[in-house]
Every structure is written in structure tokens, then in C-alpha cells.
């Protein structure tokens, strides 16, 4: 029989011993996470006439826009075999994994409101399930990109099989930031608005729609998102990572942010139902 004790600052007193518990909780509740994800997905498209078709409408519109910009000669990405619409779409797809993941994750606790204050279950599942939504959109767009490879008759390097590994750091960063920001949104609702605003403008400050320009300004080098987006894209465009050092530094940073946020989340998630 499992025995549970609730007391003030319970998790804080556990110290380092909390980590195994946190990991086992995530594993134990993977089914719940999956169900919540399916629930969100189902509910999102159930009342839409076009249903799941919406998932691919957005990238198609994006492609059209980039193709037009390219034809008009407004953007020039330099020497690469990869057509610009594909280049931009890959960048945007990776960026949106981060930005929509962050926006979904941020609101995940608040939008579950009632449930959080009435039922006891690990709240991480809500955050992860909402980011899974962004992952789902990401995968759909990847399939579209592969289709476009055929359309443009572009053959990427075989090293493309490492693409999923190179995507992990930005995903870890997204989950990490979401865990922390969702808590903050629970206490101060302004957070969600700020995140929407910041992700919109930060996209232009990050080499998403244009190639990296670290020699132009020191900011591009310091922005960890630059290398997190560029490394996986480089793999498709060139077949190698242009700046592996900054990618490794950014990855380590992402993992640190994730671990700290997760720990903080676990410590204070019990305070969130009071503020709903």
C-alpha cells in the first residue's frame, strides 16, 4: 500500500532525492500526457469545417509568400543549392516548434483552470501535452518539406538522418521555458501576453528567414536560438554544421534551463491551484 504524507515545503525538504521521483512521475503518467494531447488535438479541430486540413494550410501560405519574395528578388541567401522557399520554410518550421510550443505551454495551466483546482494529478502532463501539439504541427510540416524536396528535385545529404537529434536541444529549451513560464502565467497573467509579443519580434532578430549573420553583429552570436535553429538546417542545406561550438554551448544551456525549470515547477506546482 502506498503511503503519502503532505506537509509544508515537502518537496523542498526532500532535496536531491526528488529527482528520481520526478523522472518516475513523468514515466508513470505518460499515458495521461498522451490522452491530454489527443484531447487537445481532437477539441481543436472538431468544430472547424476544414478540420485537420488547417494543419497544412498555414505552411502552404508561408511557402507562397516566400516564393513570391524570392521571385521579386527581395531576399538573397547567397550560394546554396537549396531554393529560398525551402530554406525559409525549414527555418520557420523549427522556429514555430519553439514559438508555438512556448505559447501553448505558457497557457496550458491557466486554460486547464477548473481541472487544476479540482483534481490532483501531475501538472507537468498539461505542459508537455500542449507542447506535443506543437510537435505534431512540426511533424506535419516536415512531411510537407519532404514532399517539397521532390517538387524542387533537391537531394539532401544522407546525414539528414541526424536531424531529429539536432532538433532535441530546441525542444528541451521549449519545454524548460514553458514549465517556468506556465507557472508565472498562473500567478501573473501578463506573462502569456508578453510571451506572444516577444516571440513575434524575436523571430526577426533570429536567423529564421535569412542565413546567420554572426559577423554582422555580436547579438546573433550571443542569441542561443541562432545556433539551435541553424544547426539542424545546416545539416539539410550543407550536410554539416557550420558552427558546432556555439551549437554545443547552446545545447548545454538549454539542458540547464530545462533542469532548473523542471525542478522549480515541481516545487511550486502545488501553489498554482490556489491561484486559479
Amino acid at each position, binding site marked *: 500500500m*502506498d*503511503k*503519502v504524507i503532505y*506537509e*509544508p515545503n515537502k518537496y*523542498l525538504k526532500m532535496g536531491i532525492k526528488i529527482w528520481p521521483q520526478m523522472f518516475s512521475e513523468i514515466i508513470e503518467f505518460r499515458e*495521461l500526457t498522451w*490522452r491530454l494531447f489527443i484531447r487537445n488535438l481532437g477539441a481543436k479541430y472538431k468544430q472547424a469545417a476544414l478540420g485537420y486540413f488547417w494543419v497544412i494550410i498555414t505552411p502552404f501560405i508561408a511557402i507562397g509568400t516566400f516564393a513570391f519574395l524570392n521571385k521579386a528578388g527581395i531576399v538573397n541567401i547567397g550560394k546554396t543549392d537549396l531554393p529560398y522557399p525551402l530554406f525559409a520554410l525549414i527555418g520557420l518550421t523549427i522556429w514555430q516548434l519553439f514559438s508555438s510550443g512556448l505559447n501553448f505551454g505558457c497557457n496550458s495551466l491557466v486554460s486547464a483552470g477548473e*481541472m487544476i483546482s479540482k483534481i490532483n494529478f501531475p501538472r507537468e502532463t498539461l505542459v508537455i501535452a500542449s507542447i506535443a501539439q506543437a510537435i505534431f504541427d512540426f511533424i506535419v510540416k516536415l512531411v510537407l518539406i519532404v514532399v517539397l524536396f521532390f517538387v524542387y528535385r533537391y537531394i539532401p545529404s544522407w546525414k539528414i538522418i541526424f536531424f531529429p537529434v539536432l532538433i532535441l536541444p530546441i525542444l528541451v529549451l521549449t519545454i524548460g521555458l514553458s514549465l517556468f513560464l506556465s507557472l508565472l502565467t498562473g500567478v501573473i497573467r501578463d506573462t502569456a501576453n508578453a510571451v506572444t509579443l516577444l516571440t513575434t519580434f524575436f523571430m526577426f532578430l533570429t536567423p529564421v528567414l535569412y542565413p546567420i549573420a554572426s559577423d554582422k553583429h555580436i547579438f546573433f552570436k550571443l542569441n542561443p536560438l541562432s545556433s539551435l535553429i541553424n544547426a539542424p538546417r545546416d545539416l539539410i542545406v550543407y550536410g554539416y554544421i557550420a558552427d558546432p561550438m556555439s551549437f554545443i554551448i547552446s545545447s548545454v544551456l538549454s539542458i540547464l534551463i530545462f533542469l532548473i525549470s523542471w525542478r522549480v515547477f515541481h516545487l511550486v506546482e502545488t*501553489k498554482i491551484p490556489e491561484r486559479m
Partner: protein
Amino acid sequence: MSDFALKVENAGKKFTKSLKRSMLYGAVDIMQSALGLTPNTSNLRDDEFWAVNDVSFEIKKGDCFGIIGPNGSGKTTLLKLLNGIFMPDKGKIEINGKIGALIQVGAGFHPLLSGRENIYINGAILGMTKKEIDKKFDEIVEFSEIEEFLDAPVKHYSSGMFVRLGFAIAVHCEPDILLIDEILAVGDRDFSLKCYQKINEIRKSGVSIILVSHNEYIIREQTSKCLYINKGYKRFEGPSDEGITLYIKESLEGSRRKMHIEEQESLQSTNRKCARIIDLKFYDKNKNEITYIETGAELNIQLNCQINKELENIIFGINFYGNSGLMYCANSFYDNIQFEKISPGKISVNINLSEFQIPTDKYLCSAIIADDNASNLIDAKYMDYSLVVGRAKNTRGLLKLTNNWKIIKD
């Protein structure tokens, strides 16, 4: 080997009254926890109050335990503490086994999804695996009686269907301890009955039940032990009957105090000069003064008055106003009793009710003196007295019926 299912020691939970402060404190708490500082939670900051304070009790395995108290007494907060939704700010809560809670039905339901989908989601939220839900699925559907609408989105469900489905899922997730917050009142009579039958059934298999309500009938009927809390403090823990009697007495005193302030000024002072009510007392058959009586027992009422002027054809009346909204009365006018001339002085009017057959409830009592023309009040004390009528020991239900049993053979 411990035989308790749940043990609460000096548990306390505080809340903030102001929303802005609540944001500030929330941010401070999060920061402190994040930095690894142990926040001292047992002191009150500005604008904070204890919603539950210093509450201790213990529940044994297989107990059906009631938590009773008026609105805002901290019942739901306490339940959320037991469920682990809130962490206590002081004290300790020990739980032996898996907890299932029904704090608000349909809290985890998604309105756009069908009943079928929601059963799986809600089951998962309550900690069931898909296999377990598959196994229980038919039982849940059958118990909740929603088969016909299983694939309709739950936003089109009636509130009764909502409750049925929520309850069905919660009881089928096989908890060791089941927490129920006055939700069964929503379903219709048939379903409430079915729920209580189910509760009794799982209780026999060793599940402890905690029932929260401000309705004393439910607590009395369903639980053997109860906890009575008021304003966050524990007032009583023990047998349900005793706890409820105390709860009723205290809430009566509260409402009487309120009434007193609004005491009628409408009575004409000239009338009052003729006669005044001094007080009203209740006695049992042994002439002991009482404030509590079992229904069906003998009751003697004594109305003490001061008569200042010779009066004729006077009417005395005593009204009992129940919590249920019903009124019962003993009135000399309706009993067709004509009193002779009463000369000035102190008198006591005695009324004997050999079988005081009124339903179990808490009653506020009014006493009146009126002219032969009943509308002309001489003096009245509205709801100034109280009497608690409890359930007779050797019966169930609200009344003790007098029966004659006989078997006739053809």
C-alpha cells in the same frame, strides 16, 4: 501495520484576501522555493487568513466519515488538502492508500468531446491505465445510464448526466479512500439512492469514505463518525449524532442572534402594557428543562407571562419554524380552548404534548399572546427560543411512527 486510512495533524491552510497581494505573495513564494530557501509558511502576512486552522482527526479503514459545517467553514479547503491539491501551510497529513476524489464532477471533462472520449481522459486523470478503463468501461456506462448519448459531446449533457458520469468514473477507479464533496445533491432521487447504495457496497469492501456536506440529514444517514468545523477550526470529532446536534445548536444560536437585532418594533406599546411574555421553556416527561428532544417523545411547554390588566378570551400560541422551511404550531385558538378571565399577575401556561410528533430538525420558536380576535397581537417573541428535535433511537427517518402490528390469518 497501521490501521488508519488517513491521519491529519494540526493541518492549516491560509489564503490571501486581496488579489494583488496574492500575486505578490505567489511570486515571492515561487522565488523563495526556486532559490531553495524554505519559506516559513506558518505565519500570517498582511491580508492573509487561515481557511483551515489546526485541524486534527483520524479515519480508520472502512469508515464512513462525515465533514460538516456551515458555508465558508473550510470544508472544501480541507478536502482539497486531503486530496493533495493544496499543500498544508502547517501541520501534516498522512494518507494510507490511493485517494479518489469527487470535488466537482466534470472538472476534467472536455465539453466538445464525446462521453466515450471523456471516460478515457477522466479515467487517465484519476490515475487509471487504458487497460483498466477498458475493463471497467461497460460498468461505468451502465452505472451512469448514458448509453444512448455515449457518442454525443458532453456539452449537450444534462447536469444530471454529468454528475452520473463523473460519479461513475470516480467510484470505478478503485480508490482506497473516496472523497465526495456535496455533489450527489445534483442527481435525481433515484440516482442519489443508487449512489449511496454504491457507496455502501464499496465501503463493505474496505474503502474509506469521506462525505462533505452542510446537510445534516445526509451526514446523519450515511456516516457513523463526523468532524464538525466552523470558521476553519475543528469544533467536534466523534459520533455523527453528537456532532450534528452540536452543529445545529451552534448554527441556531447564530441565527437567533441575527433575528434579535431585527426584533419587531411594530408591536404597539399600549398592547404590550396589557401583558408581556417573560420566557418559554421546554421540559421532558420527567420535568427536566431541555433544549433537545427526540421526535415522538413527551414534551411539556411552559410559557411564562406577566399580566398587567384583566384579560378575557386570550389566545396563546407557540410556533416551531423548521430549517426545512416548514412551520408547526400549538395554538389555543385552533385547539378551541377558551380561557376564563385572567387577573393581573404572573402566570404560566402549560402545554402537554404526549407524543411530540414533528420531524427531526432544528426549530426556532416564537411565542405569541393575542386578543380573541387573533390578528391583534398583545405581545410576541419571534424566533427567540430554540428546540432541536433529534431522531428517535429505535427508528430511521424523520419521524417515529406509532405502529400497531398484527398478523391476520385467512
